[in-house]
């Protein structure tokens, strides 16, 4: 074999110099030119795929070769990329190589050629490149249809932050095409006559369903969807554990979502076994432990998407990662007042390995007991030292006993212990009153503290034992929650036993002894002062055999019945401080101190009285009313705006009666009555002025702003009646229909004098009006036409009937009041004339008048063929004013009569201005 290799190398070395020699001498390229070069396009990956062969290899051995590749775009001379590809070649081997284009291949024709060179160490230098192969064309455009617009690539999956090149091909050069990334206009560069390219730099994630890029001209928009993926993160917190030594569960934090519908894949590799599994979840993976238990695992988690591959590794010991399942079926068993047995079960681990379970007992949310129990399948533990009638919660969690790593999830169960008999005797006191010599005893007891009730107190038993008649025994049952009862006795000596009962039994008895006779009440009352803490008091023991002392008082001495309070004290105690939240300042409290004998008999020891805080300083006045029949009393000399408290209490020779509640009284303001004396007259005066003004308002109205005269009530009507004209009508302004407004311009600097000179229209030619039409006017209407003179004077009905109206020029400065009263025809005509003459007065040059022109009233509208011989000058048009119809006879004098100027104007249209 070695001999064969040596021979082969020798042959090769002998052959190659020969070929080199041939090449140099004959000027021919080495016959190692790549052949059968084929270029194809992969549109999905935007790759040019090259395949070729090298047929010229004469021997059967491999030869290392370098292929130099050139790629051109649009035309062969436009080389855009050149690179080398080295590989080992066999004879007749089909070689493959791909090149990814940043520009979509559909948008440009590509050309590829290559040449080769032997790069084998076995071949000595010098080495020569072969001749270039012929250009091979890759033309994706030829397969396109006849759409006017194409956008490439079709869809694109890219990673956030990368660059993307998009192009379009437009068949119609005339079409103005705009391209948008979503709704943002994007600018590109022209690559060819009909090809434009757009480079999108650093693309960012837009939405999960992709980012639209589209181009539109006149036709249908074409586009693509860019699916932008966020960068795949490396899994974090990768760890594994087992719950049963049969299955491993590895978990990790995958990081932020890549934002694509196509999720990255997660694969778990184990190097020792060489196994792998494709994970079904993006943050968790299960791994089956084999029958032959493998204790150590070397896991590699590989996260992979289209762009990236991320991996993390851990070394995991199976025994060190046991996380048991939570125990189940936790129940209390045999629960009594002080004990309970808790039972539970656990899931077996491996071959029934032991678990360490922790049992916790919680009371009022706090752990009060904690016990560790070793369990294989069933757990049990007796809880002791429990309180009767108490709510508890038991909680259990377990861990792998062989190697503690982590507690399981816990399971909990509530239970309540049973009741026990109350542990303490009720605190009992008595109040003894004698009615007709017979003692009536009211027994009081305090509710037991919860720690002593040991259950719900159902009732209290009161046993009355007559010490003088041992056979006499009276039993009373007082249902809870009563705290007192009354017993009537005779003059014997008694012992009364009180017990509290719950469902479990009675409490120890509390005993009081009652003598059948009143005790010594003649004890001197001592005084004392209260402090912030209460009433401090002390006493002197009378007997050495006292079993204790009781201090008794009423919380609200002023209220009846007295709320009796007492305090038990030990036999060695000779002083205490009595405090109560019910104590109030200014209230006198009486305390009685009893000594309890060995026979449970109470003997009054001392009386004390005092105030918690005396309020005498705040009493400013104290009046004594001697007459018991007097029911009213006036307190004088009080301060204004002050608050006083009054209390009336009876008194006898023995002293004052109980103090009742005070009544609050606020004295009024000192000046309020003075103000009252001032304000009332002022209000009266204002009212008088207002009434006077009201009464005078009509007079004021008549003087200042009289009513506008009503044409129907005008005095002109009386004249009409006087003439007995049957054609009397009143013109309503609403009947007039406005048609056009004329704006009259006068050339600046020119003044037109009309006074006394009846100039013809030709002489006033320079004042041609400008019109602002409100309604369409006749086309050939050359002048403003006759205008209605709307003013507050009479309207010539005859003129109106003739389809003509007077055209009265006015000066804007002329106030309406210059018209004067129209109380007679003469005055009316005079006024018209005066107004007309005024309108012919001097009009400032350059001043424009806005006049109203009525088409309806114009004779032009009805008689286009006969325009007026003397069309009125626009300056002579009047402004809009109120008017009323005037009977023909009044306005128009008979023909031939030497009529006034105004009458002529009204009757003869030809002389209008």
């Amino acid at each position: 074999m070695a001999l064969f290799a040596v021979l082969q190398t020798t042959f090769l070395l002998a052959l190659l110099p020969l070929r080199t020699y041939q090449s140099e001498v004959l000027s021919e390229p080495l016959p190692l030119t790549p052949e059968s070069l084929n270029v194809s396009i992969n549109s999905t990956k935007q790759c040019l795929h090259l395949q070729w062969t090298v047929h010229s290899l004469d021997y059967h051995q491999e030869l290392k070769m370098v292929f130099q590749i050139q790629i051109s775009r649009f035309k062969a001379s436009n080389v855009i990329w050149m690179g080398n590809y080295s590989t080992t070649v066999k004879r007749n081997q089909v070689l493959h190589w791909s090149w990814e284009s940043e520009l979509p291949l559909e948008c440009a024709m590509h050309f590829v050629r290559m040449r080769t060179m032997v790069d084998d160490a076995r071949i000595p230098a010098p080495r020569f490149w072969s001749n270039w192969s012929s250009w091979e064309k890759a033309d994706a455009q030829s397969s396109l249809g006849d759409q006017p617009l194409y956008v490439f690539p079709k869809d694109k999956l890219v990673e956030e932050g990368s660059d993307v090149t998009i192009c379009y091909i437009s068949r119609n050069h005339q079409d103005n095409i705009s391209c948008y990334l979503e709704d943002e206009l994007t600018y590109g560069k022209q690559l060819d006559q009909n090809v434009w390219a757009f480079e999108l730099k650093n693309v960012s994630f837009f939405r999960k369903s992709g980012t639209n890029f589209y181009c539109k001209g006149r036709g249908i928009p074409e586009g693509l969807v860019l699916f932008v993926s966020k960068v795949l993160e490396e899994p974090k917190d990768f760890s594994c554990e087992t719950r049963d030594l049969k299955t491993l569960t590895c978990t990790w934090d995958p990081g932020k979502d890549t934002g694509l519908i196509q999720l990255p894949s997660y694969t778990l590799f184990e190097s020792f076994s060489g196994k792998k599994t494709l994970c079904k979840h993006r943050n968790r993976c299960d791994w089956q432990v084999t029958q032959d238990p493998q204790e150590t695992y070397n896991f590699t988690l590989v996260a992979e998407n289209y762009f990236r591959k991320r991996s993390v590794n851990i070394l995991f010991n199976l025994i060190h990662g046991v996380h048991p399942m939570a125990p189940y079926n936790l129940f209390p068993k045999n629960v009594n007042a002080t004990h309970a047995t808790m039972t539970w079960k656990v899931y077996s681990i491996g071959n029934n390995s032991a678990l360490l379970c922790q049992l916790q007992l919680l009371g009022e949310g706090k752990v009060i007991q904690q016990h560790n129990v070793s369990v294989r399948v069933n757990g049990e533990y007796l809880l002791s030292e429990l309180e009767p009638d108490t709510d508890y919660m038991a909680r259990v969690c377990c861990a792998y006993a062989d190697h503690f790593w982590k507690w399981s999830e816990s399971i909990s169960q509530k239970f309540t212990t049973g009741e026990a008999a109350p542990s303490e005797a009720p605190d009992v006191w008595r109040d003894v009153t004698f009615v007709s010599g017979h003692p009536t005893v009211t027994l009081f007891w305090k509710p037991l503290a919860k720690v002593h009730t040991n259950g719900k107190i159902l009732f209290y038993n009161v046993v009355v034992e007559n010490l003088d008649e041992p056979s006499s025994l009276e039993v009373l049952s007082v249902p809870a929650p009563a705290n007192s009862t009354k017993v009537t006795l005779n003059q014997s000596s008694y012992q009364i036993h009180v017990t509290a009962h719950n469902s479990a039994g009675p409490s120890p008895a509390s005993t009081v002894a009652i003598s059948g006779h009143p005790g010594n009440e003649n004890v001197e009352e001592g005084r004392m002062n209260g402090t912030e803490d209460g009433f401090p008091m002390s006493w002197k023991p009378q007997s050495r055999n006292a079993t204790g002392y009781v201090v008794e008082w009423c919380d609200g001495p002023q209220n009846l019945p007295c709320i009796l309070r007492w305090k038990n004290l030990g036999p060695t105690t000779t002083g205490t401080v009595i405090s109560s939240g019910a104590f109030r300042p200014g209230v006198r409290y009486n305390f009685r101190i009893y000594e309890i004998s060995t026979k449970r008999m109470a003997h009054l020891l001392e009386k004390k009285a005092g105030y918690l805080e005396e309020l005498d300083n705040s009493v400013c006045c104290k009046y004594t009313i001697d007459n018991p029949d007097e029911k009213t009393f006036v307190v004088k000399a009080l301060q204004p705006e002050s608050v006083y408290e009054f209390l009336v209490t009876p008194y006898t020779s023995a002293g004052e009666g109980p103090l009742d509640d005070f009544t609050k009284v606020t004295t009024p303001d000192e000046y309020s009555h003075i103000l009252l004396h001032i304000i009332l007259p002022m209000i009266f005066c204002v009212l008088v002025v207002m009434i006077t003004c009201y009464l005078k308002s009509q007079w004021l109205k008549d003087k200042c702003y009289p009513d506008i005269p009503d044409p129907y009530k005008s005095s002109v009507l009386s004249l009409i009646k006087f003439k007995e004209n049957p054609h009397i009508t009143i013109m309503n302004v609403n009947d007039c229909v406005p048609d056009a407004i004329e704006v009259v311009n006068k050339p600046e600097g020119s003044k037109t004098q009309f006074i006394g000179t009846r100039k013809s229209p030709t002489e006033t030619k320079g004042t041609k009006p400008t019109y602002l039409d409100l309604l369409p006017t006749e086309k050939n209407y050359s002048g403003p036409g006759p205008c209605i003179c709307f003013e507050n004077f009479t309207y010539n009905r005859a003129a109106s009937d003739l389809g003509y109206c007077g055209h009265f020029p006015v000066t804007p400065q002329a106030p309406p009041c210059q018209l004067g009263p129209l109380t007679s025809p003469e005055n009316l005509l005079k006024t018209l004339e005066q107004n007309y003459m005024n309108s012919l007065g001097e009009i400032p040059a350059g001043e424009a008048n806005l006049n109203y022109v009525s088409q309806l009233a114009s004779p032009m509208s009805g008689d286009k063929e006969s325009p007026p011989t003397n069309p009125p000058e626009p300056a002579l048009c009047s402004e809009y004013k109120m008017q009323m119809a005037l009977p023909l006879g009044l306005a128009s004098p008979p023909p031939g009569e030497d009529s006034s100027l105004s009458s002529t104007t009204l009757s003869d249209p030809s002389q209008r201005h």
Partner: protein
Amino acid sequence: MQMQTSTLLQTYLQHQGSPFNDPRFSSSGLSLTTLPPTDMPFEIWHGLEDGVRLSLTQEAFWSFSQHLQLAETDQMALHPDDFILLSQLEEARLKAKGLAGNLAGIMTALDLPTPPANSPLGTVPLGDSAFQRKCRGYVIIRDYGFWTDRAVTFLGELKTKYSE
């Protein structure tokens, strides 16, 4: 049904991004050859016999039920989490299919020939890219709205005509 069709079109366009969600978006040049035609002038449609119009309407809604299924599949790939759009498409598909079935029942009652129920849908254009599939869904829903309006009017006419 017309209101639901209008709502479906609005929902669909809102979910496709620009330019589809542009309030002025309309592309009358977009069409699908596999969809029932919408270019028949109203006068010609109105002049057709009732039986012919019934048949055309039945065929149209059967076709729409299949095209809406296609649009639903396309959108499932693009918006797998968008239950509102997908449920509206599914509802429209079921209504189109239901109406086609009802019309077939009417035609049978009138002794009119009905087309085979399960005529398969061939290759539908505009499926090469995600953008084209968005366009395809738009055209399907737009034309479905046109045929819904036409069907409601036509069935109203029939009801008036035959209830007299």
